[in-house]
């Protein structure tokens, strides 16, 4: 007998919300180019602008919204077009920031995964994420924003794992990705406090991003942001259940004492490599991950865990479990049973 598959990899991507799917299908019918001046084009334009206003409202964001193909592009746009050069990035940023970072300063994190706000008091562009994609650790972004602003800098916050779950931080540039909160893959946005922070490069989106807009994707993203969020309360207790279950069975919770986004937990199974764990869980139809999806194919040692001072062997035994809207206690219990069986007697 095979059990139905259990998806616990919501940090990689989330199921598309039915309402977002409906919005996307309706969007496929509004297929004219929003830049066309005829009536059909203007209808597409007004649908796009209406969605933009709804996204502003959902996020309580008073600044500008530039639609992109996702968070990677939004981060590349922010770093590439910001009028201030990139001064520093946290050591635990996603590769989408780190690979653009060149010789910008690396801001260390402590063993609980936190950046020191005082270290961020730098002029220039400072990039610190909201929630870490591997551990869920939440950075003290409001304190960091104050430090950056007092030093005359701008704060770029990668909020890919936080948007839809947490309040948008007091940052100047914010990257987000729809498919991390129930929207479709292939659309995201860069939030910009003030156009003066970016250099225009021509094209659509007021000259800040060229390319015909993905209207169906934008409509679905707007809907996904408006979805009710009561599942997050449940997620807190489900993640507690996970943490307790793993610890009781002889495992470790990464940054268990640190404030974390409730959807993500990172767990070490001593003596069993993450690769072996993933294969074992996959064979049982349980989808989890080692680190972020993009790097997990390679199963390299996580730069996030290394930055927190974890030894390579221990770091190589950590997997990520990420829960979502449809996850229930039975799912957590099924995962924990599989975890205990794989771990063996203590």
């Amino acid at each position, binding site marked *: 007998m095979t059990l139905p598959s259990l998806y616990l990899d919501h940090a990689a991507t989330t199921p598309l919300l039915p309402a977002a799917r409906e919005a996307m299908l309706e969007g496929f019918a509004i297929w004219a180019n929003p830049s066309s001046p*005829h009536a059909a084009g203007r209808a597409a334009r007004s649908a796009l602008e209406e969605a933009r206003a709804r996204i502003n409202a959902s996020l309580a964001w008073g600044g500008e919204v530039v639609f992109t*193909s996702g968070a990677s592009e939004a981060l*590349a746009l922010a770093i590439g077009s910001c009028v201030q050069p990139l001064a520093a990035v946290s050591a635990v940023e996603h590769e989408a920031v780190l690979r653009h970072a060149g010789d910008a300063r690396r801001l260390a994190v402590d063993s609980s995964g936190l950046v020191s706000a005082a270290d961020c008091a730098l002029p220039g562009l400072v990039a610190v994420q909201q929630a870490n994609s591997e551990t869920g650790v939440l950075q003290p972004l409001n304190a960091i924003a104050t430090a950056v602003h007092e030093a005359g800098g701008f704060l770029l916050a990668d909020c890919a794992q936080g948007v839809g779950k947490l309040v948008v931080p007091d940052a100047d540039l914010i990257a987000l990705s729809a498919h991390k909160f129930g929207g479709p893959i292939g659309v995201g946005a860069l939030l910009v406090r003030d156009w003066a922070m970016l250099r225009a490069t021509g094209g659509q989106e007021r000259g800040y991003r060229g390319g015909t807009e993905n209207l169906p994707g934008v409509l679905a993203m707007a809907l996904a942001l408006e979805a009710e969020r009561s599942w997050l309360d449940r997620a807190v207790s489900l993640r507690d259940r996970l943490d307790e279950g793993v610890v009781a069975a002889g495992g470790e919770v990464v940054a268990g004492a640190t404030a974390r986004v409730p959807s993500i937990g990172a767990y070490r199974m001593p003596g069993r490599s993450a690769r072996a764990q993933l294969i074992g869980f996959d064979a049982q139809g349980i989808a989890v*991950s080692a680190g972020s999806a993009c*790097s997990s194919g390679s199963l390299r040692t996580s730069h996030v865990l290394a930055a927190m001072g974890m030894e390579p062997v221990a770091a190589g035994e950590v997997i990520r479990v990420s829960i979502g*809207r449809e996850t229930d206690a039975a799912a957590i219990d099924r995962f924990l049973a599989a975890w205990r069986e794989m771990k063996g007697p203590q």
Partner: protein
Amino acid sequence: MIYLDNQATTPLAPEAREAMLPWLAGPDSSGFANPHSPHRPGRLAAAAVEIAREKVAALLPSGGQVVFTSGATEALNLAILGSGRKRLAVSAIEHAAVLETAGFADPECAILPVDRDGLVDAEVALPEGLGLLAVMQVNNEIGTVQPVERLTDRARAAGALFLCDAVQGAGKLAAPEGADLIAVSAHKLYGPKGIGALWIRDGLDLAPIVHGGGQEGGLRSGTLSPALCAGFGAAAELALQRMAPDASHIEALWQAALPLLPGFTLNGSAGQRWRGNLNLRRNGLDVARLMSELRDIAFSAGSACASGSGKPSHVLRAIGLSDKEARSSIRLGFGRYTRMTEVVEACTRIAAAAEAQ
């Protein structure tokens, strides 16, 4: 509404829409997974991406790889900026995505003129030390088909790369075989918006412009959408199957339209042209008034991207039209789903409204 703006974007083919649906799934199915995840649902999504990639590749020459992007603009940026070439030449009638990017990469970028017919001279002088030559396959505003075959030979002889913006030609004409880099967009060939591709000749190394998770062989980071890929793949497959019937349908529409538009003059060559593009001018025509009088007919006053700006078209100026002539020009764009009755009705009403001005 009669839609005659198929250069700006095309309706989504029902087949492409259908192909996307399994990958727009909720939690009751695994069709939402991240194709870069190594678990089973991730691998299934990755397989869908690879099947789509093969279908898109079938529209393009052999001996290269297809890298998915968010659209042609990103593909052209990746080609130009990623090539690292410093000495550039582009035709005067390229899309802004090429002109602006080439001007950014090489402020001294050579602009190759076109003749009154809207064609680049295949024997045009190329600058010394040329690194990259970009000439589009089919112009988006006037539909002229450029002599890319000869130009690819000349670029190669000069030691330069040849980049072809094939957005308007892909799925309609044979691929520009000799090119090194080819940019295409799904929503111009009845696929979804938000996806395009850059075809890269084997052996050519580009530097990425969007870094991150290292998807697409490190060339283009960002989670790929299996839905958009599958929609693009289905649209490409359909375009390949329907290339001949689509072309004859377009030819019939063109033949029917021209006699219905007396007093209009064609902009650009009639012969070297994709005939789904009827760009016309008429002395003294007030295009804004025409558009407001014919609100249920969707046509363009130039390229969609420039038409919001109120600037006269750089393409119409490049073929030697005065600003006044350019401003009295319209573009009617036919596609696979344009019906003969729609073309007859639209052209009859456009002619009557123009005559009455």
